[in-house]
Every structure is written in structure tokens, then in C-alpha cells.
């Protein structure tokens, strides 16, 4: 009611006195849910560390291009993989990976690559024994170059055919992150 009375006064004042009717400055919302950064840390059995990353700080509608950092892997190697999901648009940086771990039954990461020799297997599970994908094992094959696509699904159908094995085809749900990063196998 108070608001209406105020606006009505404003209407009268603005319409007939032509004084300033400008809107107050809005509060900038705090986008704490956004994922700005996906990092895939790979550590080989011999201790070599490869970091693949994808970062877009200004979000969906931002004008700046994402920063994508690819990596080089050794042929016929096995790597321990771990995923980091970050929101770097807020200070301090928020760890979205923690949120995913808390709601692990509602999330699953998928790893797809166009390099035939590479396989990614899950190395973690949610309360129901279904994979999550924050922890993985990656093995490489022959020499080659290509890309790896990492997808985070929200509310996937984890018991659909092939989903537990990492096949995204029947996963449904909605995509919270989907990044494609170049890789070389030498």
C-alpha cells in the first residue's frame, strides 16, 4: 500500500512537474551457483601431472571468450583423474565440486573423447553404488591428438542403460557443464 501511495505521488509529480523520476540503482545479485571453471587434474603412475582446464569468468552472456588449456599425455599410460568445479566469479572462490559431492546421487560426470585409445573409468560411487565421476582412472593408447569432452549432468537417470558405464546417450537430465578440451597423446 505504501509503495502504491509513493508511486502515485511519483506519477503525479513526474507527469505534471517533469522532475526526475529515475529508478534507484539495483543490487547486483551474487551468482553463487555459476560454474566458471572446470579443471581435470591427471596424475600418471610415474607422478607426471597434467592439468586440463576450461574457464569463463563472465558467464553465459559475457562478452569475453573462454580460456581453454589443453594438455599432453603419454601413450599407453594410466592416470588418476580428479575433477575440480569452481565458481571464480565470487570472492572467495566457491567450490562447486563440494556441492556436487554432497548431492552425488543427483549428479554424474561423463567423459567422451574422439581419440580411440583413451578410456575413462569411474573411481567413485554415490550412496546407491552408482558412479559420480569426480574421481576417475584414465588410460591412454596410441599416439594421436583430439579432444576430451567433460559433461556434468544434473538429475540424470543413473539406472538407464549404459549410464553407469559412462555412456551419456540415455542419461537425460539437464547439463550443468559441458566443456571440450584439446589433448595430445605422444
Amino acid at each position, binding site marked *: 500500500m505504501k509503495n502504491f501511495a509513493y508511486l502515485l505521488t511519483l506519477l503525479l509529480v513526474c507527469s505534471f512537474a517533469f522532475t526526475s523520476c529515475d529508478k534507484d540503482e539495483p543490487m547486483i545479485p551474487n551468482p553463487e*551457483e555459476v560454474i566458471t571453471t572446470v579443471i581435470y587434474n591427471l596424475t600418471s603412475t610415474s607422478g607426471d601431472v597434467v592439468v586440463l582446464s576450461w574457464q569463463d569468468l563472465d558467464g*553465459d552472456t559475457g*562478452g569475453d571468450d*573462454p580460456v581453454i588449456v589443453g594438455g599432453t599425455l603419454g601413450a599407453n599410460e594410466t592416470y588418476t583423474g580428479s575433477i575440480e568445479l569452481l565458481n571464480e566469479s565470487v570472492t572467495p572462490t566457491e567450490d562447486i565440486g563440494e556441492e556436487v559431492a554432497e548431492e552425488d546421487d543427483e549428479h554424474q560426470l561423463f567423459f567422451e573423447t574422439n581419440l580411440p585409445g583413451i578410456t575413462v573409468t569411474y573411481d567413485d560411487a554415490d550412496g546407491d553404488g552408482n558412479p559420480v565421476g569426480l574421481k576417475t582412472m584414465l588410460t591412454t593408447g596410441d599416439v594421436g591428438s583430439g579432444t576430451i569432452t567433460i559433461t556434468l549432468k544434473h538429475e540424470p537417470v543413473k539406472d538407464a542403460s549404459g549410464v553407469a558405464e559412462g555412456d551419456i546417450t540415455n542419461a537425460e537430465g539437464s547439463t550443468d557443464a559441458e566443456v571440450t578440451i584439446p589433448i595430445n597423446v605422444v
Partner: protein
Amino acid sequence: MWYSRISISFILLIAFFTCDAQTCTFTVDGVVYDEASQSPLSYVNIYVQETQSGTTTDEEGNFMLENICPGEYHFILSHIGCEGKKFHIDIDQDTTIRLALSHTHTTLGTFTVEGKKEDFSKQGNVSVNRLTIEDNTNLNISGMLENESGIHLLKNGNGISKPVVHGLYGNRLLILNNGIAQSGQQWGNDHSPEIDPFSADKISVLKGASAIEYGGGNLGSVILSEPKKIEREPHLHGQVNYIFDTNGRGHTINARLEKYSSTIPWRLNGTLKKFGDKSSVDYFLNNTGLEEANLSLQLEKSWNENLFFDFYASTFNTSLGILRGSHIGNLTDLEAAINSEVPFNTEDNFSYDLEAPKQDVSHHFAKAKIKYFLKENQTFEFVLAGQLNDRKEFDIRRGERSEIPALSLRQYTTHLDFKYAHYINEDWVFKLGSQNVLTDNTNDPETGILPLIPDYRSLRNAVFSTVSGRVHKTALHFGLRYDYEYQNALTISSTLPREIIQFENRFNNVSALIAIKNKITKAHSISWKLGFATRNPAINELYSAGLHQGVSGIEEGNINLNTEKALKNTLEYIWLASSKFSINALAYFQRFNGYIFLEPQDEFRLTIRGAFPVFIYQQTDANIYGIDLSSQFTLSPSLVGVLKYSYLKGQERENDTPLVFMPPNSLFGSLTYRVQSNIKLSEGFRMEDSEIELTNRFVFEQTNILPEQDFIPPPDAYNLLGLKFSTNLILPKYKLRFFVKADNLLNAKYRDYLNRQRYFADDLGRSLSMGVNLKF
């Protein structure tokens, strides 16, 4: 006062003659006519509640009742294709009356040069009467208009729909609730108008340019939702309405109470709705339920001969579910969802639960109007109105955030209208008015998401003038309007660090109208309207920025947009061949310069969620044209048929490419059979006006679209068959109406081009509705 100040539904022409009050020798005779066309109605049933007797009008609409005792009577009129009506009449001498009924079917109801003082600017080409409204309160306001020619619905699922008239909707279509432009988030294709149809007695559509008085910026058609004046009926009257739908297991309850009390006449309307998941032919459409609670109050008061006061307040509150499977992520998800036979996340169980994605919307409205008679033929009107639209949209979010809206807007609008009318003589009326509208839109930062629409304040000041009159059998109407709009928008930068960017815009808009109606002969009439209007770009077209989850696209405003200009030409021809056959043909051509539309961009934008298509507001030159045809034929006193056809084409002029989201052509037919004889069940109990109505709606495939303009080709043509049975039970003090209705009787599997859910799911399967209505 020589013209109707309060719309008195009947005129008593009293024949003076004295008589002994105790004898039952009075005669009541008169004529019943159609309110809109003023033509007499034959075969109207007239029933006198107190005497439990009645009669029927003859071919010329005349009737006579004899041997009436002095006293107060209630006459109940009913007619095929008409809304039944009750009149309160005091009889203490021989009486001649003229009674008006409003017709359900619209063919007849548009041309009244002979009716002198009717408001030219408010004559609808299409109107939905109270009976249709009562029988369809399970639908929303848009749903009531679906079968009319030239009108289509833009839907998102089945709970959310907005009307499209001659291809225009949203910012380009004015919806007047009680004479005030409905203010809300009109820009959204998935935002229904927040009006409870049950509170209206008439919903009409004015096609062609007509709304000089009501609001600038609209480029043609207007939808009016209006309650009628409170009947001059000293007793408390009311009704209760209940409808059950099998599809969605929906319950709709309405109630209305009214009294022309001597202190202050009042009317109260209320509606409650609850629907669960609707179902298509093969599966449940999960999370498509809705809840709604509405209330409205209408007051009227006149202190003396010169001063009248109207008050109307309403509250509309709804929670609408959106198909779970239509909430998807990026382009990859969209493709997967489109290719999926059954929508994602479809469950086998029915549920009333409403979860994200959903919309919670409240709309509160209040209006006060004062009408003052300066002289007998000069009036001064002052209207003050306020609206609050509170919209919250919920998406599926991570970490318990689904409870936090992803879009949360609060819009206040205040209106201040002045209008002066001078009835110069029997034929000419001059009007002069002004309008001031202030809109204030604020995002709640609780969302944690950058807003799609910025915070803004806009002020619109307008002046207008109209002149209408009549020269012999030609009615004329001229209008001119000027609108000044000031916009102050505060957007948040899309780049880091986030900053607030302030925009100030000043726009000038002009509208002009010429209308000529000519009644060539009693049977033929023709009318022509030419309207020019400009519409400045709306806030969403200039500044929207963000992801539309339901269509998985990024929408971006364009700060370089200019004012849109439109010239609309409408030609209407009515042929009342006989009381048994009539045709109404309306052709229109609207030429746009700088038509604002969302243009899909060639490249996709890469975000952390994958690739998204980008849509940017652009301008082009375009034409929208079409034909609406409707015809009514009375095959026998008990059988009436209606046929309606709409053709529409929207084309960009420069490259000759089709405009997207233009309604496909459609054909509607109905056949109504009325049982002529009334069945007397016992003393004082009668069953009357039983009707069977068969309807059929065929919607053609939208072929005027290029493959690159959409993700998938438009859906195939479809045909929906409907059947309805209704009857009325007349009790000594009450009237009970029952109906059973089947929609999509043959359980056809279909998708509709204008329903955004078509990417993901089939449209509704068969639905049965059962309704009961008690009037007292």
C-alpha cells in the same frame, strides 16, 4: 437523461390504464431481440418463475402472457445459442417490454448503426458471453477465445497460454481488464494474462485498429474483459459453479454473490482451482498441474443524478507447473530431448505436486472511477488504478536452490485517466482524454542470477481525442492519439567487473484511426478501418540478456532498436441473408516498418554449459495479412450450425522470408441441437433447454516457414472433435445447470505449432469435464 446512464437491460413502456389490483387480468407482451445486432429473436423460451408458466416468441420475436396478477416477477429467457437471462419485473398494470439477449455466436453481433448511442469504439468483432464463460471456467482467459476466428493461442504446455489476434501478441496486443490496460510481464511468450475470466461477464475482441482511447503502443487489436453493471435486482442473487476435469483430475470451483443493495450495490466473485499432471495420449505430462485462487469485488454507487462511482478490486494468484522434460540444458540436450520418444523424466504416476520448473504469479488490481455529469450531455470521467504484478519463476537448480526463484520480478503500475465526453446531438459524440501511466519494475536479487529484464521505471503520458457520428446510414469514427514515453533502465554489465549501466530513453508515439461503417441494406453492411500506430521498443527488446531455459536459447536485447510503425487496413462485410443464415467476412492487411522480432543468429555461443543458440532482437519490414470468415446457419428451430475459418500469412518484405511464430490456418465447425420441448418433471420442477453440441477444430500445418527457421519442422495438421451435452433443471427458487463435455474425443495424438512444449511432448489426450452450476 436521454441515454442509458446505467445500463438498464429492459425498457418499460407502460400503458396507462387503471384496473382492480386484485384481479389477475394483466397482459404482458413485448419483443425479445439480440443485444448486438438489434434483430428480433424467434423461438425464445420465456418462463415466469413465480407462476411456473411460460411461452415462446414467434417468428418476429413477439410474445404475450395473459392473466397475470399484480406483483413482482422474475422472467427467465433462454434461446438456442444464447446466454439465458433473468429479468426482475414489477407488474401492476398491462405492460409492454423489450428484452435483450446476448448471443453466444458472434456472427450476428457486430453491426449496429441503427442502435444510436452505443459506444462505437467498443464494438467487438468477437465476444464470449457469460454462459460460455461459466461453462469454461476450468480454462484460463485465453482458452475461452480459442475457437474464434482470427484468434490463436501461444502456449507453453497447457496451463500457460496467451492470446494471439491476427498474428500479434504480447507487447503488441492490448488486454483491457475493466477498462485498464492489464500490466504485467507481457513480454514473455510463456506468461499468461493474469485475469480470472469468471469475474468477467463478457470477453470481447476488437480486431483492427480501434483502441485510441485505451492505450498507445498496441498495433491493432484489443481484448476486453468486462464485468457487467450490477443488475438492478433488490434481492441477493448468486451462483456456485463446479467443474471436474478427468485430464489432470482438475477441480474448479467458482462462486458469485451480488445484490443491488440500496446503500451500496455490490458483487463478489471467487475462484479456486487445482489440477494435477495432465496427460497426453501415451504418457503423463509430469509437473503440469496448477493451483489458482482469485477474488474480486465490484461496487457501484451514485449519490445523486450527476455523480457515479465505480470500484473494482481483484487478486489473482496462481502457481503453474511446467513440464519437467522441457527444462533442459544446452543444444546437445535439446537435440536429445527432441529425439526422445517420451519426454525426459516422465514418470508413471499421476501427481498433484508442483515442483520446479514452475511459475508463482500474483496480480493485484484496484480501480476507482468517478463519472460526473457536467450537463445532461456532457460527462467527465476520472479513473485511478493500481496494479501489482509479482512473478517468480523457479528452475531446477543445484544445492537446494530450486526453492529460490531464478527470476523474481515485482512490477507496480499506476494509471491516471481523465476523459471528457460531449454528446453533441443525437448523432455526434466528441471525446477528449488523457492518460498517465507509471511502471516500476524491480528484480529481487534473491535469485543469485543476473536478471533477464533489467530494473526500470517508465512513464507514459498520453492525450487523445475521438469523434464519432452518423450521416444517414453511415457511421464514422476518427481518432488521434499522442503518447510520450520516458524509460529509465538500469542494466548490469555482461563483462567483469560487474557495473550498473544507466539508460534513458524518450519516445514519441502517434496513433490515428479512421473507421467507416455503412449499412447498405438491412441485410448487407460493410465497414472499413484504417489505423496507423507507432510502438517504441519495449524494455525486453532493448535490454534483455540471458538464458531462456525453456527454449535453451540466449536472448539478447538490442539498444539500437527504433520505433516500430504499423498501418492496418481492415475490411469487414456482414451479410444477414435471413434470420436463418448469416456470413461475416473480415480481411486485414497490416504493413510494418521496423517490425521487431527475435532473430536466430548463425553462430552458437560457447558457454561452460556447452553451445547455445543466440537470438537477438532485430528489425525488419514485414506484412501480416489474412482473412477471418464465420457463418451461422439455422437449419431448423432446434438445429444451429456455425463455421469459422482463419487464414493468416506473415512475411518479411525485404527477403520475402516468412515470419516465425505465426498462427497456422484453422477451421472450426459446430452443430448445436436443442431439445425444443421442456420436460415437466413434477410440480415446479422442469428440465429445459437441453442441448447437444458437436464441435470440430481442424488446424492446418504451418507450411509458411523455412527449415532453417526452427529446430524441427512444424507439426502436422490435426483435428479435434468435441461433444457437449447440457441441460437445465428449473426448481421453484433455483436453476441448476449440468453439462458433460468431451474434448479431443477421439484421443488424437497431436502437437501444436504455437505450443512451445511441442519440442518435447505431445499435446493433451482426451479429456472429459463435468460441470454443475447453481443459480439462485
